[in-house]
């Protein structure tokens, strides 16, 4: 079995060593440096998730990915996620097809919603229409990926009649995934449209997603499609020791979850809930390289997944801490996971 390993960021706004927030501009430049360094550290994929907030100032992931593409040669580059429901599928295809051209065929997209809802009011969409928007636009995106002229009609965008959409890709569709956060009907949709499945597991025991992987493969069979890969995306942080990783991660995680809790109405996390989530049956991959590698290696087979993306960073981390995380993830965690899974040393 071949496994691949990625890093994802939301452009989490960096802090300095004294805890003061860096500018949005500096954070974006740091993300580009982190992407370039990820290749040097041996990471297979670098993903940037679209967000529109003060603490995740990352609305134009494709622009940053293009900057990384210009300075790298091997690492795959993609969105994690593109909020397709509030975007135009034609433009998304064009931007990532352009990235694919620039990078020599290294582009990918993960389509979904993430936890990002800010783009809906920003671009004049109603969240109550989310299902229809996403379903229609994902259907159109699947058509665009095929390459030929597209004919499509729906309610959420102007119709296309035998429309050639450029730039054409050189060697067929680039990899495209749908991100799913716990709704089995979204799993069925990914299979129906022929997208690969990205399981976003950000809270609770990962094993509860195991039936989703089987559901996905069975649904692919039902729709007459070949098997497609499953990936896991989860947050975490790697440092020299478990204690250091937790001490660095906890205050930033607590702060961002507290902000989101106030926006969404759920209660703030406690140290007890943090301990649960960083433990063997939780969703956070926070610890030493050995701890994180052991947890990844334990979960991938349970989840029927062949790719793991660590969502690294949180608002407030310093760029240096993130570079150390990338270094340890690439040089120690990934080789150790492959060793634990009996997989070839690298691709």
């Amino acid at each position, binding site marked *: 079995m071949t496994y691949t390993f990625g890093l994802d960021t939301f452009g989490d706004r960096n802090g300095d060593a004294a805890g003061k927030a860096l500018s949005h501009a500096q954070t974006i430049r740091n993300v580009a440096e982190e992407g370039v360094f990820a290749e040097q550290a041996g990471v297979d994929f670098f993903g940037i998730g679209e967000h529109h907030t003060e603490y995740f100032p990352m609305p134009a992931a494709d622009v940053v990915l293009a900057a990384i593409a210009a300075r790298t040669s091997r690492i795959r580059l993609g969105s994690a996620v593109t909020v397709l429901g509030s975007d135009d599928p034609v433009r998304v295809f064009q931007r990532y097809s352009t990235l694919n051209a620039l990078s020599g065929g290294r582009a990918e997209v993960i389509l979904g919603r993430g936890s990002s809802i800010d783009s809906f009011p920003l671009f004049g969409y109603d969240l109550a229409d989310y299902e229809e928007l996403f379903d229609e636009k994902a259907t159109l995106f699947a058509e665009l990926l095929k390459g030929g002229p597209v004919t499509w009609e729906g309610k959420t965008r102007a119709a296309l009649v035998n429309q050639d959409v450029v730039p054409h890709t050189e060697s067929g569709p680039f990899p495209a995934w749908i991100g799913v956060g716990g709704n*089995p009907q979204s799993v069925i949709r990914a299979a129906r449209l022929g997208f690969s499945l990205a399981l976003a597991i950000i809270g*609770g025991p990962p094993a509860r997603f195991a039936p989703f992987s089987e*559901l996905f493969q069975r649904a692919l069979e039902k729709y007459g499609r070949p098997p497609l890969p499953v990936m896991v995306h989860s947050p975490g942080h790697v440092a020299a020791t478990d204690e250091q990783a937790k001490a660095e991660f906890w205050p930033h995680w607590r702060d961002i979850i507290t902000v989101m809790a106030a926006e969404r*109405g759920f209660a703030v996390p406690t140290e007890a809930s943090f301990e649960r989530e960083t433990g063997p*049956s939780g969703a956070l991959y926070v610890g030493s390289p050995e701890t994180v590698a052991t947890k990844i290696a334990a979960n991938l087979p349970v989840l029927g997944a062949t790719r793991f993306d660590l969502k690294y960073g949180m608002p407030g981390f310093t760029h240096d801490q993130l570079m150390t995380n990338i270094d340890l993830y690439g040089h120690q965690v990934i080789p150790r996971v492959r060793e634990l899974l009996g997989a070839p040393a690298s691709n």
Partner: protein
Amino acid sequence: MMREPTRLAVLGSGHVGPVIARLAVKAGYPVAIATSGDPEDIALITELVIPGAQPRWASDAVADADIVVLAIPLHRFVDIDPAPLDGKLVIDAMNYWPASDGILEPFEDGGSSEIVAQRLAGSTVVKALNHIGYHELEDRARPTGAADRQAAGVAGDDARSVAVIAELVDQLGYDPVTLAGLRAGRVLEPGGPVFGVVLERAEFEQAINARSLL
């Protein structure tokens, strides 16, 4: 003579419905699950994610049920026909969640279950299973007597119905804390002191009592 088993109909096959249905199957209840569409559409989901439950048309599931669980997005609830639910005991596991519902004016002032009950005038509505995250609901369930058993709120205007749902919540794996009145159940809503946290009974009662003193 053996008592007829309590039959559940879970409406909704998104994030929450399958989790409640799994807990109910595990606790030994006959469970039907339904969406607004053809049961064939959720046959595979049921087989793999909720083994033991029956996918059915919503009208059939509701007609045969003793307890109906509403686990659909609130913005879809406003479109459903209340008539088939007449005379039924209904669990409102929904929340007003502008982050996914968008703004729904009637629900802006709080008390979502009271508005649900007004719309389902022929049903008895009990608010329950709405305040523990779907990603934790199954993992934190424990049998009666377990040391680390967690609490779950049950609120309704009809005391007998609250007792019936409290018994169900107990069987599903939580220590039921009953609240007299849907109005009192507002403490279980988003923004309330127990929403999205999992607490043992003493902490739970302390949290909601502190809030009601304000």
